[in-house]
């Protein structure tokens, strides 16, 4: 693989690449390295008797010379740059930098306002989000109506007396009994108004008013079951313990005016 030749001085030369070779000196047991880097000649003992090892060291040495030289050059140049430059007043320069970057930041922020605000609900979207009315007189006890408000299904439940009796029994099976909100979590204790959006990940819980054992609960006393990840709520929308939904079904702002329910306006 390598060319072996004896030159005039009687040294054995092993050619590796152009400008790179190993050689052996008469009085030294080690391999010596010869490098020609951009016309500069370097020689040194590689302190090893193993040819493979010597070859590797030679490559390392070459890299070292190549890279360290260019680094030194660069540093020298940089030093020169600094020395040659006339002394400047850095405080004024700094002050200028700071003020201009501050002004830049203010400008950017100013421009950002309209662009970010454009993402807010438009007037039209806000108008569509206005309140809705619902006639309660036709809702039978035990039935549930779904009213759309802000495109959210709103559950309006007409509680039966049986359900109202059962609700307190569930107080220790739910995470947050909210006794302060009243038995049916409603101001009139007959109608419960809930957002039909699971508080876990926004699915629509299904209305299951029957009092009977269910696949998800042996002692089901009626309520809502969310099919997505199995959250359970009672008829007042209170969440059971140990299900993914963290909180009770939300009660949307609403008020009663005689037989009319107004959703979207606080009491």
């Amino acid at each position, binding site marked *: 693989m390598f060319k072996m030749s004896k030159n005039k001085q009687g040294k054995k030369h092993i050619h590796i690449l152009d400008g790179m070779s190993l050689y052996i000196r008469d009085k030294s047991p080690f391999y010596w390295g010869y490098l020609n880097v951009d016309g500069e000649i370097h020689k040194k003992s590689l302190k090893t008797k193993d040819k493979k090892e010597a070859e590797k060291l030679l490559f390392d040495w070459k890299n070292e010379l190549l890279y360290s030289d260019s680094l030194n050059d660069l540093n020298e140049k940089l030093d020169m740059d600094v020395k040659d430059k006339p002394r400047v007043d850095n405080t004024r320069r700094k002050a200028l930098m700071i003020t201009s970057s501050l002004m830049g930041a203010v400008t950017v922020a100013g421009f950002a306002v309209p662009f970010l605000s454009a993402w807010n609900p438009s007037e039209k979207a806000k108008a569509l989000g206005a309140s809705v009315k619902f006639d309660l007189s036709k809702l039978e006890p035990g039935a549930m109506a779904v009213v759309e408000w802000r495109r959210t*299904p709103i559950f309006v439940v007409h509680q039966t007396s049986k359900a109202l009796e059962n609700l307190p029994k569930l107080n220790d099976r739910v995470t947050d009994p909210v006794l302060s909100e009243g038995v049916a979590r409603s101001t009139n204790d007959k109608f419960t108004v809930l957002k039909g959006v699971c508080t876990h990940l926004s699915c629509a819980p299904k209305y299951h008013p029957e009092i009977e054992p269910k696949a998800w609960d042996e002692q089901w006393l009626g309520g809502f079951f969310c099919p997505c990840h199995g959250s359970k709520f009672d008829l007042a929308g209170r969440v059971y313990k140990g299900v993914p939904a963290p909180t009770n079904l939300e009660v949307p702002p609403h008020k009663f005016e005689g037989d009319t329910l107004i959703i979207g306006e606080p009491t």
Partner: protein
Amino acid sequence: MASEKSTVMGWIDRRLPVTENLERHLTKHPVPKKVNFFYLFGALLMVVFMIQVVTGIWLMMFYTNTEEGAFASVEYIMRDVEYGWLMRYMHSTGASAFFFLMYFHMFRGLLYGSYQKPKELVWLFGCFLLFLLMAEGFLGYVLPWGQMSYWAANVILSLFGAIPFIGPDLQVWIQGDFVLSGITLSRFFALHVVVVPLLMIALVVFHIFALHEVGAGNPEGVDIEKYRDEKGMPLDGAPFHPYKTFGALPAIGIFFIVFFAIVFFAPTGGGYFIEKPNFEEANFLKTPEHIAPVWYYAPFYSILRAVTFGIPFLGITSKFLGFIVFAASIAILFVVPWLDRSNVQSIRYKGIYSKIAMVLFAASFITLGYLGTKPVNELRTLIAQICTVLYFAPFLLMPIYTKYEKTLKVPDRL
């Protein structure tokens, strides 16, 4: 040098160094002589990216980005536009292919230490690309305005709503409405076709330039830059063209065969690429019985669902904690370069713990992916929780095991 030639190319080169840059970044760029098929995924990703851009532009010519029109326009593309079905199925299959290749490409990176010094930036740009790809896929999935588009988007947007204090307002701001509506749809359209693709192109450029600065890796983890011939060409390297270009051709051919087999014969991928409920128009008042993500999000969705508990005394709900863990599962990839303390790059020379860790990571990722497409029950939740731990453990323990395990000596040359 090309620039001295009195040809047209020479004329251009004197004004814009086209040849020089082509040679530097493409034709003469040295790549390791010996790599395996794992190293083809990068090239294939470029191919898929181009498929997505071209088919995407054509789809955009027929698509309507309004609540009333979106679903109908997709049906119109499928039924009335000549080869419209092909464009759409190429685009949807392209999305799956994009993720498939991306996951392998990144797993290759993990196996062969393609993130180690000095390749940290290459890896970071790549992680950021994964993040953008996930965003892009999510935004794109909303556009057909099918049932699954709508409800899956609801699930994801409600995650923002779970952030304490600012959450609800943030969600309304992102949606531009009190609910997910057509307003949201049009802004997602703008993000999907302009903003994210532009960012992705920029990052791909950074990714490749950074890679060419530090040099591509190889399965042995040998540094090929060390030994160069007198022209500065690494002894263990070969110019990209023709060695790798022709090497990649058969792979691209095979990829196209598989790709079009799916496009023609199984474009919905059995409900894993395009889900059944998405052939029904979005209905605000009817949640599908079972909301499952497309396969490529399934592992992360599983992680999200596996968190069934919060930290009550810190006011952190289980939903928000789920969001944090889910975000962390992607964020942790970004810091891998600083977690690995090993003195070797490739798994081939790392110790037994690294090998176990990679197997555990891959196994948990696949299991999570499977679970993510299934409805939950107690057992599945438990398995998902275990797998979530196994997903994170290889990374979190990395600083320890990579430091103390015994590694093999890496050879000097390929």
